[in-house]
């Protein structure tokens, strides 16, 4: 294992851990509105109370020490263990907003953690659907050429010419109104994924066209290897690098697709927090500078992008030991 792979795994693992343990790590319920604290800036944490020199506290008229493993809003840990313990918190009426609060007084830190669930799911599901589809159609059409290629390419063009956004607008109106927000979200991910393959497939096809004429593939054909064998043994391994790079590029773009949807108001409905919805709600330039902490999910997206990049790079190097 090389360093990039280790870093990538670590970063992604951290993000996934944040997502799964969001309820425990976050001091507040992500939907809870602390209405006396709209657009609260980051809570300053001071060190050293009267009792202990090292004790961290927050100040709200008086000192409120930062407590660990406090009892707060009930939740189900990992989805099934009923629990009320949160990693940290302060006693009311003080509040702790590590990353400030939004316009309704909701804790940005808690929402960013919870948002990781949705946004990482989008990336994962969309990749799992689009990459295999793209590989299948891309290699087939590049390898066989002729009418298979022709039909596949026109199909891709159709998908690219009717962008997912338009379909989502139409689809959202067609879904039943009372549908749970989670299901609405799932439907959107599927559309994003179903439209994500076309771009990738074209790139795979382009690379396959080149590979097919290379000596080792020609040699395999001359030797009478079956098509399936050529594709699986000769083409796919040579496409690994390409696919990894493209997957690392695609993952953030799927997460960002949700930002664009939220910008149009068609993202994940309230009260589910998602990075896209949070970013889109920052709104105009009037608030951008004043309430900059609402851009926190942007940093999270950046970390995810970096994690996917490191992972892809690391995997490439790892899968090809000939290269250091």
């Amino acid at each position, binding site marked *: 294992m090389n360093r990039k792979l280790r870093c990538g795994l670590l970063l992604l693992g951290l993000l996934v851990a944040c997502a799964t343990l969001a309820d425990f790590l976050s001091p507040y319920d992500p*939907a*809870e*509105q602390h*209405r006396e604290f*709209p657009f609260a800036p980051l809570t300053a944490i001071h060190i050293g109370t009267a009792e202990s020199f090292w004790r961290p506290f927050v100040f709200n008229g008086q000192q409120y020490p930062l407590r660990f493993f406090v009892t707060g809003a009930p939740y189900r840990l990992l989805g099934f263990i009923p629990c009320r313990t949160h990693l940290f918190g302060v006693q009311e009426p003080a509040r702790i907003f590590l990353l400030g609060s939004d*316009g*309704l*007084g909701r804790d940005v830190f808690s929402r960013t953690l919870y948002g990781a669930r949705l946004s990482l799911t989008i990336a994962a599901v969309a990749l799992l659907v689009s990459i295999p589809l793209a590989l299948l159609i891309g290699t087939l059409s590049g390898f066989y050429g002729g009418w298979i290629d022709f039909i596949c390419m026109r199909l891709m063009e159709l998908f690219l010419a009717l962008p997912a956004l338009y379909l989502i*607008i139409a689809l*959202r*109106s067609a879904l039943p*109104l*009372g*549908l*749970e*927000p989670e299901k*609405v979200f799932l439907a959107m991910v599927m559309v994003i994924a179903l439209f994500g393959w076309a771009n990738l497939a074209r790139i795979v096809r382009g690379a396959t066209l080149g590979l097919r004429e290379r000596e080792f593939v020609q040699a395999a054909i001359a030797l009478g290897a079956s098509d399936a064998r050529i594709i699986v043994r000769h083409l796919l391994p040579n496409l690994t690098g390409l696919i990894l790079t493209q997957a690392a590029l695609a993952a953030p773009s799927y997460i960002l697709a949700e930002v664009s949807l939220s*910008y*149009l*108001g*068609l993202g994940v*409905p*309230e*009260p589910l927090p998602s990075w896209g919805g949070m970013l889109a*709600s920052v*709104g*105009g*330039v*009037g*608030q951008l500078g*004043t309430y900059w902490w609402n851009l926190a999910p942007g940093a999270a997206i950046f970390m995810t992008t970096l994690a996917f990049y490191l992972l892809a790079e690391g995997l490439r190097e790892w899968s090809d030991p000939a290269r250091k």
Partner: protein
Amino acid sequence: MLKAGKAVLIFCGLLALASAGCGKSEDAKRPTGANRLVISKSAGPRTFNRLLASDEQTSSLGDCLMGRLIRINRQTQQPEAELATSWQISADGTALTCELRRGVKFSDGTPFTADDVAFTFQVLNDPAIASPASFDFDGQPIKVEQLDSHKIRFVFPAPQAAAERFLDGVAILPKHSLEPVYREGKFAQAWTLATPPEQIVGLGPFKLKEYVAGQRVVLNRNPHYWKKDSSGNQLPYLDELVFNLDPDRSTQLLKFQQGETDLLSPVNADDVAALASLEQQGKIKITDLGPSLIREIFWFNLNDGKQKNGKPLVDPMKLVWFKDLRFRQAVSHAIDRNAIANLVFSGKASPQWSFLSSGDKLWFNAEVKTYPHDLNRAKSLLAESGFRFKSETELVDAKGNPVTFTLMTNAGNAIRQKISAVIQADLAKLGIRVVLTSLESRAMLSTINDSLNYEAALLAIVSGDADPNSHVNVLSSNGLSHWWHPQQSKPATDWEARIDDLMKRQTSTLDSTERKKLFGEVQTIMAEQQPFIFLASRHLIVAAKFDIQNLKPALLPDFMLWNCEELRR
């Protein structure tokens, strides 16, 4: 690398060109001097034919280009003479006679006569044109009688209160230039955005100079405009009026901050803070006009009909709750309207309990029932109706069904998203679970107007005019926008029947004190019954550069430009 090199070259070329542009654009900014007003609009007009579109942009541009017989003074909310020098309503209230101004010319120099008014109404009443500006009174069109070259009479099928107000929306068309087109049956395609500017002829203070697709509309002074100021100077004062098309409000704000545009209306509540320093420097003036005519409301679907597939429009179990007056009142009590005003509108909104906003100053009835935020009151109302708490967080009805509903709102509207989140949190405290969903606005409107299969909706109503007649569509039980239960063949409840009756009576009552009393009672009923749960009316805030004089910002659109002929700098 060769290709990349070329690309770099091209790019450098572009940069060089652009930097040349930089130098020039400085002095190119204002060659025609300061006598011009630039304003950002979020969308362009759809047509220059004011009678063919009813959207805000087309109307506000149309009002600068076209003249009207009577205009409603946006500030006093009262009618005032424009192309009609005087008007008279017959004693029985069925006829309106207008004396037309003499010596008035269209922007191409052709004189204006009663023929033009008659032609305008011929087009307006033509079913084939189906103008959205057309009027009918109980299904019958207005009769127009041309008494002489400068006198015209409108006859209504029944006595009509405030009849003169409808003339505000009727732009007078030039018969000489549009009649041939109309005769050919091509009126619908006349005066589109592609029409050469000089062909667009009007009686307004400005005429069209140019339209640059998707970018801007430039108007310049109409030399034949009839109005003069009190010291006899020809109006308008401004040479040019420029509408820039900036779809995004951030861009609008930035342009205004940089001084590229001269007016910003309306200013979003969140953006007021960003403008404060400019105001302190004396560069701009910000005016908060108080509660606007936009009222945020939410309501439950009270339709008891069936869908095409035979299923009821609303789950019968839920319809029982929704129709229960105490349930609606309890919900109304549970909502923290101050939180909406403070969190959603940064304090620039006023809580509201009944149909009118206090900005509707001639008609507002302050003596109505109010619903202050009071959870205990809400809980006791629910208990009276047989609802009970199964647990701390779950309300059930008398039969033990958990109380939950889906609240629908229009997508892409940050304000409604926030309000719906506040409602959701407030009702959670009553043990009511609210599922939120947002639909793109056409889809939502079609749901509340046509398919009717939803549970609750959050939207706003806006008054077109400060007169009870403009609310008939919403208030009468057969109205299209009687959203909680639209287009009823006969009133479903006694109180709706009472409102119908009051609305009919006020329409035919000529005495305004009596009308005010009747309409006051309508507001009392709406407050008591809460078919709409009124939330808040946002304040109308406008901003203008310091040197613009004669501004009379008002709550009726166009907030700033309605008296564009008087503006000067």
